[in-house]
């Protein structure tokens, strides 16, 4: 049976884990090695590449509730994370091993979550483009970006999700965050606690996700940690995830219509293509 390199990062600050995500992806672009990983973060909001924070979030309310805000390199919608609310996963895989079509590749990798749910006898269903449903409601969302040789997909398996806090952080009028408003989100969103009608400890969710990786790719996990090279790259990338020029890239970045982080590899790539 093939092996898959696997890292369980445990609980980490969101900026740090974002730098690890990017470092694993960029290193794999050169080495071609696939890797799976898990993590959780303290309260954090991870914005998609092209989301305008100033319009999407109420930053005063985010701060009052203790949420850190950063931005990831992949697109799609914001992810609300906190220590006990969910287990988050990442997978860096070779493009040549995966479908070219994005929706098909989402489906293949989201199989990790579908298989993880089997641990509890729950039936997961992939919903295009990038969600997994359980009992007809969203329990997992994912985001993906691609390089020349590899893709990275990261996502979440909700365990104990606080819908009211998520709505409070969003830039919507407080009066809309009523029992009725929360109920309407509850009709579309679920988590392990709701699905199983009991408190599911996160280590149980982590164990299920490990099983999900193994079953989905037909592999045995090989426990690993960051290499020295990955750690070095991550430490170089870490300031980006705190930097307003990246996080608030549309309004506090150095450029007007091209908002990528000036010191980041994607900006260097972008600039070289413009020349």
């Amino acid at each position, binding site marked *: 049976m093939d092996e898959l390199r696997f890292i369980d990062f445990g609980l980490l600050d969101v900026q740090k884990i974002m730098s690890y995500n990017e470092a694993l992806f960029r290193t794999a672009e050169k080495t071609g090695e696939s890797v799976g990983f898990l993590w959780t973060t303290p309260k954090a909001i991870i914005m998609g590449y092209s989301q*305008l924070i100033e*319009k999407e979030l109420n930053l005063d309310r985010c701060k009052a509730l203790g949420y850190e805000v950063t931005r990831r390199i992949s*697109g799609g919608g914001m992810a609300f994370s906190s220590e006990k609310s969910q287990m988050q996963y990442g997978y860096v895989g070779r493009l040549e091993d995966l479908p070219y079509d994005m*929706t098909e590749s989402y489906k293949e990798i989201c199989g990790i979550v579908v298989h993880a749910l089997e641990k509890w006898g729950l039936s997961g269903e992939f919903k295009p483009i990038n969600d997994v449903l359980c009992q007809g409601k969203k329990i997992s969302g994912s985001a993906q*970006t691609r390089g020349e040789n590899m893709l990275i997909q990261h996502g979440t398996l909700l365990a104990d999700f606080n819908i009211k806090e998520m709505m409070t952080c969003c830039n919507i009028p407080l009066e809309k965050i009523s029992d009725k408003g929360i109920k309407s989100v509850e009709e579309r969103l679920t988590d392990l606690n709701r699905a199983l009608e009991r408190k599911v400890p996160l280590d149980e969710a982590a164990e299920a996700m490990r099983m999900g990786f193994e079953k989905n790719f037909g592999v045995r996990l090989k426990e690993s940690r960051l290499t020295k090279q990955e750690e070095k790259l991550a430490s170089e990338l870490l300031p980006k995830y705190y930097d307003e020029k990246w996080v608030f890239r549309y309004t506090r970045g150095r450029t007007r*219509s091209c*908002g990528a982080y000036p010191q980041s590899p994607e900006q260097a790539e972008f600039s070289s293509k413009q020349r």
Partner: protein
Amino acid sequence: MDRLADMKEGLHKSKSGLIRALVKTDNGRITDVIISGDYILTPERCIDELEKALIGTEACREKIFGTLKRFYEQNKFQSPQTYPEDFTEALMKAINA
């Protein structure tokens, strides 16, 4: 200077997510644009390149759609269930706001 202060906003939902377009025009042409939202388009740097391609475009549906269609033809990216028509719709809503 607050970049967003003199930009107009248009929202349109494509099948992959919300497109929130912000546009500034001068003399009938686009002088600044942000195509934000939670829609899916990869590689993401193409979003920056798309914004750049729109600068200088005449602020009318036909020209904007033309720029977007050309961009789709000339660049290698994927935007599942989001099409030039969707971006055009969001941009026109911003221009007419």
